[in-house]
């Protein structure tokens, strides 16, 4: 399972978590990631608006030559962006597992402020153990 990177956006489109796992994407500055997150949030909203069929959700999968992004939007408006290689199967399973880890180690952390950047060591550790077990 080769996941390139994971981004988590809050309800307002702000970046609250970003981590690289494997080589494949350019390393950008943290400001660039913030801008990227904001852009994605806006694009996600517009994609549901330009839908030719009424009642569309937002963007779910984005494909390019060298990577593929899957966006999982939770019922609370949090977006989990998983960047992976183009032919990686089962990204849905990975999305759901990351969401589970988020619910367990971030939301249940009593010191975590909602919508603020995630600084939970347990979440980091569990995520790395799941995504990159041999590290």
């Amino acid at each position, binding site marked *: 399972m080769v996941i390139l990177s994971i981004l988590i956006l809050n309800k307002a489109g702000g970046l609250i978590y970003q981590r690289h796992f494997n080589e*494949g*994407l*350019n390393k*950008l500055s943290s400001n*660039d990631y913030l801008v*990227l997150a904001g*852009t*994605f949030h*806006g*694009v996600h909203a*517009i*994609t*549901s*608006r*330009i*839908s*030719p*069929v*009424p*009642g*569309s*959700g*937002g*963007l*779910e*999968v*984005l*494909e*390019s*030559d*060298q*990577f593929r992004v899957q966006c999982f939007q939770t019922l609370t408006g949090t977006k989990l962006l998983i*960047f992976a290689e183009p032919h990686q199967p089962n990204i849905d399973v990975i999305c759901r597992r990351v969401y589970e880890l988020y619910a367990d180690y971030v939301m249940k952390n009593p010191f975590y402020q909602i919508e603020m950047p995630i600084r939970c060591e347990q979440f980091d550790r569990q995520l790395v153990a799941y995504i990159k077990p041999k590290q």
Partner: protein
Amino acid sequence: MPIYSFYIFDRHCECIYVKQWLERERERSSFRPQTANSTISSPATLSEKRVSTPIDAPTNARPPHGRLSVQDDAKLVFGVVFSLRNMVRKLSGPDDNFISYRTSSYKLHYYETPTNLKFVMLTDIRMDNLRVALHQIYINLYVEFVTKNPLSPVEHKGGEGVACELFELGLERFVQTIQDV
């Protein structure tokens, strides 16, 4: 598998060609009783099976509640496509190309030529990657009937010179073959 619409944008960020096939869907829905979320178009456009508008033609009726006019739709599509293309370039270098994206109810396919001409097609989600098809539209239809047309201008400001008859006919036929596959 239905194809919903097709757009061409030039390198000056202008929409030079729009073709929508969704009017057919709306026409069929006119026989069902009206619901709160109805997208039934106004009587003026119901008689046409499809809308193919040059960009500076005036819109004859106000679009039904919640639906955008064709020009606004084109602008939004361009914005989305432009932002995603820049995002992809930033993340994996200037050689990477954004191919397509999918939502829960439609799929958008994108192809950009080396001259920064952008071809965008919105289809049903089950449609496979249409990049090759868009490339063929470019080579066999656009280059043949628009670029090689001695009467068409070099820059298609406002969409002039693009919607010529041979191009439209060729496009219809080509889209039929894709839809039937």
